[in-house]
């Protein structure tokens, strides 16, 4: 019997010829990532060692990544102190994949990992962040865990008692229309599956549309797989994955590519015709409340947000700049742009993308999670409506339970910035 991609990855990670969905395994971990919540992981890690007489040393400092992104620069003394604690721990344990608040190598964890070549196909990646699903874009099995689970990984180098997930195969064909983007595809799919539809399962993406999609687009769709409840999203590695790793992520040498078996057994197969797809929006207050743009066009908005681990890469910012070039953001709208990493920020600075956006009226913020989770920067007023390229629109998400958040692609966000209303980018763009 053939194996899905995740079954294959897990069988290798435990050194067995085969595993199947439902088996309980303890795979070795190739990369363990945390952000500011590393402060809690450290707390739990030290508690594990209490009374053991053993020194609290991580199993392998080269396999741990620590990246500050959620509240950068720190919004409070409390955050700054948490960050200090993580910084000191990284130095003390010899953790080199540590990305501090810096303009040369900082950024959002889910962008830092791929762009530095930390994630390779076939590997097992865990992160104390639910959007760790993103790294399935490179053909790894990558999923979110809590802080205590991570502390256990730091101690043992394995993740304990993992049930091999079943897989939903999503087969996508047809070319996306102009100004219809990977974000629209994943929003559509979440609407079809519901917020629970893929709970405890992996979504494996296939088909000509995915094969043609850039790694940036694949990161977007895998990032949001968790919004359908999925343990992870995954795209089998191919020529584009190898190109990205060599050309953009600085990976040297041969990249081994792992693919699912042709006779793998899937829990469910979903076919999507992408050529029919209109821009999609997730409406308040759940990510699966998805509507086509025709149904919500004209809705007044107060704040546009372009950025995040979902849609803060160079192509996302460039498409917004193309739509806004030589034009002005509507007077009653605030537009915030936050690139996903310092590297992307500098690229967008060099090629003029950021000045185009600023001349149109956008505010460019430093790389980080920014307004997405409502911790600092860009909080909403009572009754405000935000249109964001981020990944969650839960009540209170952008810092105010009396506000509303709609999720969309960068093209919809930019077209709407010009009018102050939800606007179809395919018209007049």
């Amino acid at each position, binding site marked *: 019997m053939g194996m899905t991609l995740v079954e294959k990855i897990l069988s290798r990670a435990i050194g067995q010829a085969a595993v199947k969905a439902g088996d*309980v395994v303890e795979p070795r971990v190739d990369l363990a990532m945390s952000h*500011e*919540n590393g*402060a*809690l992981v450290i*707390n*739990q890690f030290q*508690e*594990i*060692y209490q*009374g*053991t007489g*053993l020194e609290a040393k991580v199993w392998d400092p080269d396999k741990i990544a620590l990246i500050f992104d*959620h*509240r950068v620069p720190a*919004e*409070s003394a*409390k*955050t700054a102190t*948490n960050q200090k604690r993580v910084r000191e721990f990284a130095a003390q344990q010899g953790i080199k994949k540590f990305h501090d608040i810096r303009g040369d190598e900082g950024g959002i964890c889910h962008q830092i990992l791929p762009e530095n070549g930390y994630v390779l196909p076939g590997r097992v990646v865990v992160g*104390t*962040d*639910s959007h*760790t699903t993103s790294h399935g874009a490179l053909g790894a099995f990558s999923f*979110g*865990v*809590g*802080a*205590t*689970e991570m*502390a*256990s990984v730091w*101690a*043992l180098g394995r993740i*304990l*008692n*993992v*049930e091999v997930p079943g897989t939903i195969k999503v087969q996508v064909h047809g070319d996306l229309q102009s100004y219809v983007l990977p974000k629209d595809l994943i929003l559509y799919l979440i609407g079809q599956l519901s*917020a*629970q539809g893929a*709970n*405890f399962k992996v979504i494996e993406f296939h088909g000509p549309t995915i094969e043609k999609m850039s790694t940036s687009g694949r990161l977007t769709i895998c990032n949001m797989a968790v919004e359908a*409840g999925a*343990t992870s999203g995954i795209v089998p590695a191919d020529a584009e994955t190898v190109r990205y790793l060599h050309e953009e992520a600085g990976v040297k040498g041969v990249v081994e590519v792992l693919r699912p078996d042709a006779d793998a057994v899937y829990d469910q197969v979903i076919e999507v015709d992408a050529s029919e797809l209109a821009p999609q929006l997730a409406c308040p207050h*759940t990510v*699966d409340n998805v509507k086509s743009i025709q149904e919500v066009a004209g809705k007044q908005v107060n704040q546009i947000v372009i950025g995040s681990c979902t849609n803060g890469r160079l192509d996302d910012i460039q498409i917004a700049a193309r739509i806004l070039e030589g034009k002005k953001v509507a007077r009653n709208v605030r537009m915030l742009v936050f690139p996903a990493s310092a590297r992307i920020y500098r690229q967008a600075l060099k090629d003029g993308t950021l000045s185009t956006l600023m001349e149109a009226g956008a505010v460019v913020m430093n790389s980080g999670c920014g307004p997405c*989770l*409502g*911790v600092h920067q860009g909080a909403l007023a009572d009754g405000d409506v935000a249109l964001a390229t981020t990944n*969650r629109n*839960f*009540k*209170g*998400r952008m*810092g105010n*339970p009396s506000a509303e958040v709609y999720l969309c692609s960068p093209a919809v966000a930019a077209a709407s910035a010009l009018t102050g209303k939800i606007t179809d980018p395919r018209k007049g763009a």
Partner: protein
Amino acid sequence: MSKVVLKLGDDVSTDIIYPGRFMATVLPTETPQYVFADLVDFNTRVKNKAIQPQSVIVAGRNFGCGSSREQAASCLKGPDFIVIARDFARIFLQNSINLGLNTIICPSIEADEGDELKISATHVVNQRSGKSFELVPLPQARQAIIDAGGLIPYTRQRLLQTKK
């Protein structure tokens, strides 16, 4: 007997259980003050210790969806809540088991605020309606962690085994 003190619907996210703006607070001893912070009345009752330990929160499907923040489990563990839901989101359920929060999967549960529930290993009985609802066991894969009293003691056991 355990009393239902809060009844919620489907897809209750971790942003509702523990809003992101309080995420700089991480210690399990400190997180309960922000439990359901935007449900102001309920949060006030928790802070004033007006709710008995072992009180029940009843929810629909996909409880704890969204962020992996462990504060969402630790803020419920502190006041010693029992959470009964039709089902749970994966990361939240694992965090709860890891921290020893009492989570019960009960796909057909019908209960309202104020109801008294009798909880056994296999069923929840609503004393008001007299109806009995079957439980779904927690994932077998996590049983060793539950038996050890949480992931910290379990990892400690494993660590000592490997170092011997």
